[in-house]
Structures are given as C-alpha cells and as structure tokens.
C-alpha cells in the first residue's frame, strides 16, 4: 500500500480542479509554483492509479492543468468524475487524447488497465 506522504500546500489543500487553476492561473513564476502532490491510496486499485496515472491526473499534474482549461473545475480531476465509462477510459489510454500520449501495454498491461477502469468508474451513479 502506498502510504500517505505529504500534505498539499496552501490553496491546493482543498482538493478539486479549481485548485490547479488557482495554482497556475494567478501571478508568479512557473518555476516556483510549489506542489506536494497527495500520493496516498486506499487499497490496491487506487494504489495502481497513483502509480500509473496520478503524476498527471492528481493535483497540479499536466493532465489536470490542461483539462481544467476546457471543462468545469469538478471534471478535471479524474478521481472526482462520476461520468467515466470503461470504454472511454480504455480508448483514451490506448489512443491518447489531445496532449495525452498513448499509454503502451508495456507500461500498463490490459489487466492493470481493467483494475484502473474499475477504480475510475466505481463512482458512477
């Protein structure tokens, strides 16, 4: 299990895509934007998401930052989405989307992708 390792800084501490906008949308030099990404996980499925996806899809990840430009704040953090389907996640991972590169099966196996899909779709109503 991946242990809790950091606290998020300041405005980033509340969670949500708006935070990415707060962190990057205001004044200041991009070289000194501080971010301590929450790397915690509960259970193996979330741990796999953290290992494979969180670097870009949690707070201040490249994916979160770019997604927050074109969708509502609550949509930019994948773990807060309730509308993701398995087919959609699989397609985006394997074919890429916008600035997201394709993720190879060497990096994320089909079985691992099934686990991540399960985690990201469990919040569907």
């Amino acid at each position, binding site marked *: 299990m991946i242990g809790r390792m950091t606290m998020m800084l300041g405005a980033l501490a509340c969670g949500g895509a708006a935070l990415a906008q707060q962190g990057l949308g205001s004044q200041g030099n991009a070289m000194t934007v*501080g971010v301590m990404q929450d790397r915690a996980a509960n259970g193996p499925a979330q741990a796999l998401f953290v290992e494979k996806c969180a*670097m870009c899809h949690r707070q201040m990840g490249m994916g979160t930052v770019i997604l927050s430009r074109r969708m509502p704040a609550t949509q930019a953090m994948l773990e807060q989405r309730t509308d993701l389907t398995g087919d959609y996640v699989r397609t985006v991972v394997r074919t890429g989307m916008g600035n997201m590169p394709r993720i*190879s099966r060497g990096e994320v196996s089909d079985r691992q992708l099934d686990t991540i899909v399960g985690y990201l779709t469990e919040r569907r109503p």
Partner: protein
Amino acid sequence: MSIPDIRPALKDFAAAIGAQNVFFSDEDRAAYSDHFAADETRHRPGAAVAPGSAEEVQEIVRIANRHRVPLWTISRGKNFGYGGAAPVAKGSVVLDLTRLKKIEIDEHSGTVLVEPGVGFFDLYDHIQQRKLPLWLSVPGNSWGSVAGNALDRGVGYTPFGDHAAQICGLEVVLPTGDLVRTGMGAMAGSPNWQLYRNGFGPGWDQMFCQSNFGIVTKLGLWLMPEPEAVLGYDIEFDKIDDLGWAVDTIAALRREGVIRQSPSMGNWLRSAAVMTTRSQWTDSKGALGEDAITAIRKRFNIGWWSVQLRTYGHLDMAEAAMRVIDRAFDGKAVLAKKPKRWSRGETPEGTPFSGVPVTFPLANANWHGGRGGHIGYSPVLPARGDLAMAQFRRTYALYEKYGMDYHASFSFGERSLTNVNQLLFDRDDPDMMGRVDAMFRDLVRDAKANGYGEYRTHIDYMDLVASTYDFGGGALGKLNRTVKDALDPNGILSPGKSGIWPSHGGARA
C-alpha cells in the same frame, strides 16, 4: 537502410518472455511512436517487447542477433522532446524496460541501485514511504526514468543535478548477450559497487551514456542527504541586456562552489506557456510582439529573465553562502530579489529545487491550443556574459525569422552554459511544423559556426548533430563506429542512436 522480416523473431521473443509481453498490433506500434511528431509513422517501430528481468533481456538480445533484428532500447520512453519511445530506424523492435522496477537503497551511504523502469515518482514514493533522509534530483518534467534520464545526461536543479555525474556502477547486457558490471561491481560480492566509481583499470560507466554499446539493466546513483536548510533567492531581471552581467555574476559563484546547483535563467514564456495558452495573449501569427510580452510580464509580475538560486546544506554554511551571493549582487539593478528559506521539519518548497517530481511544466505542450509539443535545442557555450548575449541575439533573430515564440533558458554548469530552447509547436499545423524543421537546422548551423555543439538531440537530428563534431575529419565518429562494430558485430542495438551506426547489420546508415 533495410530491416529484415521481424516475424520469425517475434515468435522467438514470445517463446522467451511470453506472448503477453510482445506487442505488434497497429495500436501497440502507435503507442511506441514519437508522440510529438507531425507524422508519427516516420519513426514507427515494427513491434515492442517488454522483458521482466535482466535474464530475459539477455535472451532477447541473443534472439535479435540470430535474426539480425535491430532493437531500440527505452527505459520508460518519456523523453518526449527528443522522440519519446520511437526508434531512429523505422521498423526497429522497441526493447521496453519499463517492467524492470527494482529499487535498492543504501540509506547509510546515500545511494540507490535502480532498474530502468523506475520513474522519478516511483523512487520519490519509495523514499517518502520509508521516511528516508534522502532527496532526489529531478528534471523539470519528472515522469521519465531515473536511470534513463541519467544515461541521457539529463539535468536537475539541486547540487546533484548533473545526473550522469552521479552514476556509480552499472549492470549492462552487452550486444552479445553477456552481462557485465562496471566499477567495483566487477568484483563478485563487492560492497563498494555504488561507492567507488572506478574499480581497477578503465572505467566504463560513461561509455553507456547516450550510446548504443549496451543495455543498462541496473544503474547506481548517488543521492543527496537531506540538507538542514535550503536558502536562496528568486531573482527577476527587467532588461534583455541584464543577461550578460547576470551570467558573469552567477557563473563566478558557480565556479567557486558558492552555488553548487545548476541555476537556470529563463525568459517570460516559461511561465506563460505553462500557465496559459497563446490565444489568451494574441491572435496574431509570428513571434509574440512587445505588447504581448509586456502583458505577460505584468500578469505574472516577472522580469524579461528570471533565475532561482539555491544553497543547500547545514544552515551555517547556507547562510554564509547567502552573504556571498548578497555581496555579488550588491549594487546591481534587479527588478526583484525575493528570499527563499526552508529548514528541516518544514514542508519542502514542492518544486524540483527540493527534488519534488512534477509534470505540470509540460502543460506548455498546450501553448498553441490543440495537440502540441516541443523539440529541444540545447547548445553548450562558455559561461561568459558576452557570449551568452551574442547567443541570445542570434537565436532570438532566428525565432523571429521563423515566426516562433522565444522560449529559452541558460543553465549553469560548473564551467559551461547550456542554452536550453524549447520550440513550442502545434503539430496539426503543417506550415509551422515545416518552419520548425528549417529553423532547427538553421540553429544547429548557427551553433556550429560558433564552435558550439548540442549536448542532446531529437531522433530526427542525431546524424546532423553528430556531423558537427568534426575534429580530425570526424575522428570521434570513426572511433564510435569502431567501438560499435567491435561490441555489436551484427549491429542490432539501437542503430542510429547519437549518430552511431554499425558498419554491418540489418539497419545501417
């Protein structure tokens, strides 16, 4: 160049490492292509194989030799500005080492032995979970491999930021399939493999950097003991010409060891391209004009140039270094000089200056909206202010000539300066992509005319850059080829890497 039918080899690969680890569908081949390319098919591999152990790497190499099939080795394949996972020679089989993820840390000595699949976030998590008092040095975009980045001579922002210089001991699969360990690792059971670089006789670690002479399956690296304090300044400069005196000031501090990290002095676009998109500033084509530059600087409250200086270590030492830095900048006009101070027990700065991995800087791929990317152009020059200014003026003129937005920094080595440029582009704009290629060739020509060479380059330009290292009629290139042919007689390992091609084999220039 021609590559033989790889299908018989794929069968043997599948028998050796399992069919589930051999990938050759169109979707798989696309996943190992150059993600930033206008035409991803130019460097599309024929297949990819992902072994799970050094023994499996050895077996793959033996099979590749039997079938004369070229392999293109990647660690994690995230070096996007330089071609990502894609091979120089189209049709090569990508040897993807991302499944090799072992981490062995010697806490007492401050060293780590990593396999190539270990990313910066993996190693960071490993250290944090165990609460080890060790800091990483990470590049500005930290999703890549720790070993791969060091082997490609990547750089970070702490005193351990010259990553290739921190290498201490390798395990390497040679092109014949034999396994060697370098330095003290050549002695079975040595406790000094990650402690003493040279061993006895010739040292080979650097031979496997940016080369195609072997496949590194383990890499020893020195880590920075957690400092007691990190002090520094974030400095903004108002005028373009401030670059000259600032380079002379900082270079002296770097030579003397007052500053032991590699500061990077960059322009306003570094902030704007990460935090915003171009359409927020202008609808006009061509390089950004003065109005937009002024608006960007005002919005982010930044200078034409910015630099971050940091000193690390015991508080007494860091404070003493800060006093020297103060004296060095005394009486010199800066726009802002904001002090930074961290001491043990506080939350770290949360940037690469404190070894924290981040990925958001690559949001600059979205600068033009749509599907973007960048290509790196990074010539090395002497750490002198007058030469830095001249370099800036010539390069800036080329950005304007080709209608590209100036995105550059000057990174301080101990004796040299690397002018890191990122040409930010929209890969769905064919006209722009054509200009990028022409501009890149012009930039290389300009650097060569001044005696400067690039330290690293994209797969499209490896032959071009190698050709600029031309002393003695290209004597270095001849030496590289002699070594290549001796170690890899069938020419199967990463043909074309760094402009090194085999004389014989399935893929040769």
